[in-house]
């Protein structure tokens, strides 16, 4: 397969995954609110409740079971209110009500059947439905079993997981029954585990088989407990299962490190890729690049100020806005400073550093020296749960995807557009390109606008991950340059690979070296690396590059 085709595949894959991820994240929130089962006739409900209220402690268990067995959607609410001691009977009418607040003499209540507010009733007029500890225990398991009978598998899964480590002898039988009839494999597995923990506690070493491989904390705790058991068989089996689980946890932790590494790497790529364009193509070193990133982040903040209450829309609009703001400032820098310093890279470096100081101070004076908060829209917060030990935070996932998109778009611009062609021509041989009629100055401006705009995009993305403050850009400029140097100047693929790998290296080193030392080690690594390959990972070869 040739490389172009391969790149298209990559892009397609990316798009598909982004589209797929969105609804997936949204789906989780909505799942819990489905409502399918039927409500009982009003009379039947009233009868059940009155039976509960009027029964003695021994009969109440049966009354609870009756309510649970009724299949009424309101049953759960009744039992919960009962467990909390909020269920009461009005002395005169015999109506069953839920106490909404119990301060003062007149208590506001709601009708238990309709859940409509029914005004205030004197404290003395109310007879609370009595409860004791034994009933509470029974209620807990009944509620759990009730939850296991709802139609929504996601809800059942939550209920099943809540039972882990919390199963008593009373419910085991009904649980086993439920587990056998469970249609959803995940819920069934969770139930089996919950039962297995109970069996393990009872000293059944065979139960370990059902727990093996689970990453759940409760399961691990139960196994840990069992591994200290006096029964050698149980202890051995549990230890063996624990060792397996530790192994798999390690794998998951590695995956998590990789994810964080890729996430950091994607940030580095975003920050560095604009630089790779300006530095690689024009040979211009723009020390104010970090401040262009900062401006992108502040644009996001400003958009959110303009559109209060719509952080998501503001963020989406900030993408073009951030690009524009940074691109315009970039062009101003190019026209105002850099064009006068052609062919004097060191002076360019100093002058643009001066610009960066001015931009930083400008933000400090005009906005604030303090950090601003940029809101993360709902669809970007939370995380994607892979399993019990591994969950991927959504904002980082989005930034990762965004980085890949930006990269793909830049690749397209460079490969498929007239501008890209001209830019590449100017990179290869400035004098020759000019003699072929390419207006190098125009290319310079456009290139600089493109590189700066991408810095703005990096800022928009960064605003979702870190604090937005005047020093935001400063923290990334050195890292960005390291990425460009490591990847090889003038090569976008190099920047991508270098950024991602530096991110991963950093995250791998961090746990045992600490954040600071990891940074230093990465720097030392780069210095040693350019001993071997002075022109980076993907050097430009040939006479033009020898300079």
């Amino acid at each position, binding site marked *: 397969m040739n490389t172009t085709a391969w790149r298209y595949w990559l892009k397609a894959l990316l798009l598909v995954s982004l589209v797929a991820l969105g609804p997936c994240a949204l789906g989780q929130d909505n799942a819990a609110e489905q409502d399918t089962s039927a409500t009982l006739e009003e009379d039947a409900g009233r009868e059940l409740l009155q039976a509960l209220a009027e029964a003695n402690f021994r009969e109440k268990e049966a009354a609870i079971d009756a309510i649970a067995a009724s299949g009424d959607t309101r049953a759960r609410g009744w039992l919960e209110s009962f467990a909390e001691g909020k269920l009461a009977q009005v002395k005169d009418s015999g109506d069953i009500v839920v106490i909404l607040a119990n301060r003062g003499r007149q208590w506001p209540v709601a009708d238990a059947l309709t859940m409509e507010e029914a005004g205030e009733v004197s404290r003395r007029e109310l007879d609370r439905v009595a409860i004791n500890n034994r009933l509470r225990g029974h209620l807990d398991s009944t509620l759990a079993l009730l939850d296991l009978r709802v139609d929504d598998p996601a809800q059942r899964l939550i209920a099943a997981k809540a039972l882990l480590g919390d199963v008593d002898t009373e419910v085991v039988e009904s649980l086993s029954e439920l587990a056998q009839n469970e249609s959803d494999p995940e819920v069934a597995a969770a139930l089996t585990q919950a039962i297995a923990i109970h069996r393990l506690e009872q000293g059944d070493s065979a139960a370990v088989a059902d727990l093996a491989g689970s990453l759940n904390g409760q399961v691990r705790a139960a196994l840990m407990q069992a591994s200290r058991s006096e029964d050698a068989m149980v202890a051995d089996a549990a230890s063996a299962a624990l060792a397996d689980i530790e192994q798999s946890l390690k794998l998951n932790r590695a995956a998590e490190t990789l994810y964080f590494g890729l996430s950091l790497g994607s940030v580095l790529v975003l920050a560095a890729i604009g630089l790779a364009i300006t530095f690689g193509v024009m040979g211009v070193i723009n020390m104010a690049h970090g401040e262009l990133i900062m401006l992108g982040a502040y644009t996001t903040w400003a958009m959110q100020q303009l559109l209060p209450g719509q952080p998501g829309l503001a963020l989406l609009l900030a993408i073009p806005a951030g690009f524009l703001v940074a691109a315009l400032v970039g062009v101003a820098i190019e026209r105002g400073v850099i064009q006068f310093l052609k062919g004097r890279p060191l002076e360019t470096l100093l002058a643009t550093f001066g610009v960066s100081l001015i931009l930083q101070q400008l933000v400090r004076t005009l906005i604030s020296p303090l950090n601003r908060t940029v809101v993360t829209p709902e669809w970007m917060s939370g995380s994607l749960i892979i399993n019990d030990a591994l969950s991927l935070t959504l904002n980082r996932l989005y930034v990762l995807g965004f980085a890949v998109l930006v990269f793909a778009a830049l690749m397209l611009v460079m490969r498929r557009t007239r501008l890209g062609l001209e830019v590449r021509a100017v990179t290869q041989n400035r004098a020759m390109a000019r003699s072929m009629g390419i207006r190098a100055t125009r290319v310079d401006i456009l290139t600089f606008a493109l590189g700066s705009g991408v810095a703005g995009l990096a800022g928009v993305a960064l605003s979702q991950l870190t604090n937005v403050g005047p020093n935001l850009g400063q923290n990334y400029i050195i890292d960005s340059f390291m990425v460009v140097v490591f990847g090889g100047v003038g090569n976008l693929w190099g920047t991508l690979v270098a950024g991602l790998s530096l991110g991963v290296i950093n995250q791998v080193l961090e746990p045992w070296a600490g954040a600071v030392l990891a940074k230093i080690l990465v720097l030392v690594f780069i210095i040693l690396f350019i001993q071997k390959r002075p022109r980076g990972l993907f050097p430009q*070869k*040939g*006479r033009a590059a*020898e300079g």
Partner: protein
Amino acid sequence: MSFLHGLADRDRVFDFLVPQASPVDVRHGPILYLEDVSVSFDGFKAINDLNLTIDDGELRCIIGPNGAGKTTMMDIITGKTRPDTGSVWFGSRHNLLTKNEPEIARLGIGRKFQKPTVFEALSVFENLELAMATDKSLWPTLVARRNADLRNRIEEVMETVGLSALSRRQAGILSHGQKQWLEIGMLLMQRPRLLLVDEPVAGMTEQEMERTAELLKGLAGKHSVVVVEHDMGFVRSIARTVTVLHQGSVLAEGSMDKVASDPRVVEVYLGGDEEAA
């Protein structure tokens, strides 16, 4: 301190150590010998199985269209570019592929760049001073003094290249032709066994060209000279043997007349120019 003084005077005390003639063994054949040299940049073969032999004292012209690999060949000989395969020998003793640029320069290979490269901030005198064949390691350079020997040598070279009147002039403000001459002068100061001269007459007037031709012809014999040039008239005026490079390997070799009548050469120069650049 006396030790320091000893060091300080080293270039004078051990004058005989200064490489007047580099220890190049040419008893058994050519001074420069390239065999099966190939190098590629990003898949583009700049040099392709190049074989080239330069005899001691020879004046050789190398011609070829753009992109024929002339400059890359010079880069390989002077240690700037490492070939992918092949071997490069200076005399029968020195394997140039194991040496870096300063070592190769010290062996006695001088190079004039295509673009005249002189030290613009320094005077003509200082440019020549730096080129002088002497101990070029750190400490001797720090304590070096300008002795009569050095001055005489510089005077002599300035005379040769016609820059005597401009001794104190900054090299940056010389004319293009003068810079070319200064660079040739710097080559002479190095007392090389082998001179590699890349386009010496580019940008020169007719008169300057004639003088350059004379100078190069005068150098041959004492030195071996390899000239890369585009200007056919100039090549014809100096060359005894001409090598035509095309697509990184030798296309033809021989006297100017023989080469010029070779149909392949004619085709390369007249017909097949689309591979150029």
